[in-house]
């Protein structure tokens, strides 16, 4: 089932939650576009509530998109029939943000891990216990505890069960939504190593959603930054971290806590920087790059370097790309 081109191609993906009494509809994902190549990881970071989880859900067709296209392995998912989609699910998996509520409380870990194996018939029935034990070992857990229920585990242990379940069927593409946020730094490093080695062995691709920018830097080839439902910056990890082009990306990088008590205390004592954004929708006239998008009909997106794009919306007043931006 291989196809030329990227493993995943997302174009102008939109998700709108319908209007409810007295309030307008919520556009949670607004024209999001990106590619993920086989064996590559795209890190997705951004403000809490900016639409990261919804993007992941819409790609996996767990949430209807209101517009745009999602192609996985060359096949359009948004228009796919249910039966075909069910077959595609073997190729794409989700590590959910919320480990506890995503595990069935009355199933043992053995049953939880066996379920996808049975559904997708990925191993013969008699080999299932063996594969379950293998998966537990893979995520650093003792296979002897498989007969326990989810509530008998700590937060981090549950998160590892969720990761093991996603990996059970050897998918090609995994959306990892905060996969290591409940883990201590040593277990985090172990899971990150695991994701790396699987990627090398199986050419797995990940959409890696996380708030920990150090972890994202460690795992992602490319990084996308989301704010208010849109991508505001997208580029190679090193470029985005070392030469962030959008003010929100800078805000984010500046706010990373420092594991040094004196410096971190001083940082928290400073007032929080307020992002000063302009360039809202409907604004006419030239953007900070001097282009009038309303007149030319072009997207408000600019390449500042090969493969490094940035939105010209939400720039602070007076700021000019390519120039040192004022601290905000």
């Amino acid at each position, binding site marked *: 089932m291989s196809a030329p081109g990227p493993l995943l191609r997302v174009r102008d993906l939109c998700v709108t939650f319908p209007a409810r009494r007295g309030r307008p509809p919520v556009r949670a994902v607004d024209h999001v576009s990106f590619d993920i190549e086989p064996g590559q990881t795209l890190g997705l970071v951004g*403000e809490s509530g900016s639409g*990261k989880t919804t993007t992941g859900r819409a790609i996996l067709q767990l949430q209807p998109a209101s517009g745009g296209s999602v192609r996985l392995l060359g096949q359009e998912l948004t228009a796919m029939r249910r039966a075909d989609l069910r077959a595609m699910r073997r190729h794409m998996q989700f590590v959910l943000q919320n480990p*506890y509520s995503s595990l069935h409380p009355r199933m043992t870990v053995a049953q939880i891990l066996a379920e996808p194996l049975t559904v997708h018939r990925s191993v013969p029935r008699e080999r299932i216990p063996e594969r379950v034990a293998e998966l537990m070992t893979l995520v650093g857990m003792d296979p002897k505890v498989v007969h326990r229920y989810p509530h008998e585990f700590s937060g981090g242990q549950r998160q590892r069960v969720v990761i093991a379940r996603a990996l059970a069927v050897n998918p090609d593409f995994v959306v990892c*939504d905060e996969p290591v946020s409940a*883990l201590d730094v040593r*277990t985090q490093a172990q899971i990150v190593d695991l994701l790396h080695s699987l990627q090398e062995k199986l050419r797995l691709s990940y959409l890696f959603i996380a*708030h920990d920018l150090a972890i994202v830097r460690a795992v992602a080839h490319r990084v996308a930054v989301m704010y208010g439902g849109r991508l505001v910056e997208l580029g190679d990890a090193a470029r985005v*971290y070392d030469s962030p082009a959008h003010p929100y990306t800078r805000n984010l990088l500046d706010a990373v806590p420092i594991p040094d008590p004196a410096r971190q205390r001083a940082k*928290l004592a400073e007032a929080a920087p307020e992002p000063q954004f302009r360039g809202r929708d409907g604004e006419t006239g030239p953007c900070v790059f001097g282009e009038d998008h309303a007149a030319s009909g072009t997207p408000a997106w600019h390449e500042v370097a090969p493969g490094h794009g940035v939105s010209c919306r939400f720039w602070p007043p007076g700021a000019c790309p390519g120039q040192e931006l004022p601290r905000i």
Partner: protein
Amino acid sequence: MDDPRALLQVRDLTAQFNRDGVPSRVVNGISFDIAPGEAVGFVGESGCGKSVTARAIMRLAPEGSSVAWGGRILFRGRDLLRIEEREMRDMRGRRIAMVFQDPMTSLNPVMTVGAQIDDMLCRHAGLSRRAARRRTVELLGLVGIRDPALRADDHPHQFSGGMRQRVLIAIAVSCQPDLLIADEPTTALDVTVQAQILRLLMRLGRELGMALMLITHDFGVIAGMVERVYVMHGGDIVESGEVDALFAGPQHPYTRALLAAVPRIETAGRTT
């Protein structure tokens, strides 16, 4: 040993589950103190007993399990493991509040977010419905929810993971408890919103004398927030001390290993 200054004194706390018919101990007799207004951090590897310890102070067994606690938990001199359930219920929420590690399981899925905070305020702070809603909207704004008056009418599933986590924080601080237990309270927050929440918690400590028991895997968060740190490993406290001393010279090999594993973002000149 009985420091009159202490708000919370935990002595020889044990916790034991029944696993496969065999008792298994996950907290092995730990002791620690928290003074009024003090912020104390708990770190340690996944499964070492942090959440079980925190829940013992609330006297809440994990859902669907029974747990046997031993030792003493003195809160303003009252032993929480021995008081009547009625007195304990009164403690929860009003004197001691907790932000649980899993936000979804501690929110009611069929009630709006606002109604859940209103309830808390009516029950524990004695506010009228109307006054409660005003305060609820204010609290949602404080934790950085945009359009709080509108969003108060949303149900939990209409919130993002980090927004739910902030709702839990709003509920926990709503009645101005003497002690806030926060179990991984910012894991679902981006670093700018996280900083906003951390500043809020610090302000509550300063202005209202709220003590904080902060459990987190994030050493950057620990560094800026707490005065003292307890390091747990396999159900024991293996090291404790002032935060500066602990970061500068960790004594226990396990603490050293943890600090060495802290991921660092190499953006020289950026994070300063």
